[in-house]
């Protein structure tokens, strides 16, 4: 059997038909298909690259975001701490001022009381002096009702006064 000897007729027809089909499909069939596939492949590769880039950027953003959030939190805590410190300071100073004021008022009041007391004592002593002068006047008047006595008293007084002048 002629299984391994190629038949001339079949060789001829195969060459002709294969050639014709190849030419036709080379012209109208395969290039458009493979071109389209390549075009789509390129697009897919490009899209994948873009997607990766976007993903990277997103990751960066997420990191930045987290970092910023962390910073903001820290700032917030700091601000709160400062605020409470300031508040405490204000309260403390207010307290100190109030205490000072109160002390001052207390001191003033004490001074006033002292002054009043002094005034009152002065008044009392003036009153006592006046009363004693009046008493002395009454005694003197009753004593000076007779002449001898009055003259004697006057002399004594002048003596005393002159003694004191000479002493000066």
């Amino acid at each position, binding site marked *: 059997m*002629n299984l391994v000897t190629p038949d001339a*007729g*079949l*060789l001829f*027809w195969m*060459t002709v038909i294969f050639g014709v089909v190849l030419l*036709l*499909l080379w012209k109208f069939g395969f290039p458009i*298909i493979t071109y389209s*596939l390549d075009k789509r492949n390129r697009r897919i590769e490009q899209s994948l690259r873009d997607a990766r880039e976007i993903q990277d950027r997103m990751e960066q953003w997420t990191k930045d975001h987290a970092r910023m959030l962390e910073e903001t939190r820290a700032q917030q805590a700091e601000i709160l701490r400062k605020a409470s410190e300031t508040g405490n300071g204000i309260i403390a100073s207010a307290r100190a001022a109030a205490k000072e004021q109160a002390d001052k008022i207390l001191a003033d009041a004490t001074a006033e009381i002292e002054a009043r007391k002094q005034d009152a004592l002065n008044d009392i002593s003036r009153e006592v002096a006046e009363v004693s002068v009046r008493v002395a006047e009454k005694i003197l008047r009753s004593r000076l009702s007779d002449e001898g006595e009055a003259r004697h008293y006057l002399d004594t007084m002048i003596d005393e006064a002159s003694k004191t002048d000479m002493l000066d």
Partner: protein
Amino acid sequence: MIAKLVISLMLFAFSSGGDTVSVAFARTGSRSDAEETVSSREESDIDIAEIIFEHIGDDYQWHITEWKGKHIAIPLPVIVRDSEGWKVFSSEKIIHGETYRGLKIDPEKGKIVEASSLRRPLDLSITKNVLALMFSSLLLLVVVLLTARWYRRHDVLREAPTGIARLMEPLFAMVNDMARENIGREDYRRYTPFLCMVFFWILFNNYLGIMPFFPGGANLTGNIAITMVLALCTFFTVNLTGTKHYYREMFNNPDVPLFLKPIMPVIEVFSAIMKPISLTVRLFANMLAGHIMILCMVCIIFVMAKYGPLLSGGMTVVSVLFGVFLDALECLVAFIQAYVFTMLSSIYIGLARTKGE
């Protein structure tokens, strides 16, 4: 022709006993009488080789099936140029051994010869294989052009393929990727049409060859003339588009030690010639072997028919199971062979497109 066998195969699959076998194939006989068995053996013996070669070989007519004892066949045009000049006539005139216009079919070789001298004339007849070739080419043209039409009318960047494009795209993408990987990004585009052509040509013809009924069933890719043309196309593509570096490496490779210099070109040229031969034989032998194995499995049924109902019935089940297995295997092989041929072609082209270090 295979259809005939497959129908009987199915018939056997559905019949449980040997009785049906003996009824349906009374000609092969399953008589219990010992004497009669001996005497009938000669007339009932089946020439398996003849059946197989009839199926895998070429023919001047396309035998489709046998219906109620009558052969249904398509006569094909005979185109012959002998010493008297061109002759064109229908094969009906000579198919049953007649001599017509000085030509007849040589019963030994099954080819047209000159009746007087038994010499082979130039025979360009449209044989069964040529008709199958035309049919598969037409199918290939239609399928690929329809696919191309889809791509021409649609924007691939916006639409997913539909219909025939969806069916064909994975295959095109496969061949395209293969070409890109093996030939290189710069110039693979020049070769993809050829590689696509080779791949789809082999694929279509392989599957049409497995198909047991008309218009399939012709053993095209298991025919050495067909695979030879394909391999020669690869050979010329490789060697006519080879780069300077490819030829320098072939004839004067600077890396080869001096004492090997006279031998290496011979070896290289020999290997360049062996490449298409190996392509030819690989595809041809694989497909041919597949066809022969399936035919043998089917023939077991007919061979065993004379050994009694029990044995033939049992062997029928076995052969049907093996036949189904081999058919499934052939479907796989049909694809693999198309893939391998294309893959090797692209690798050979890639080697010839070397740019040097």
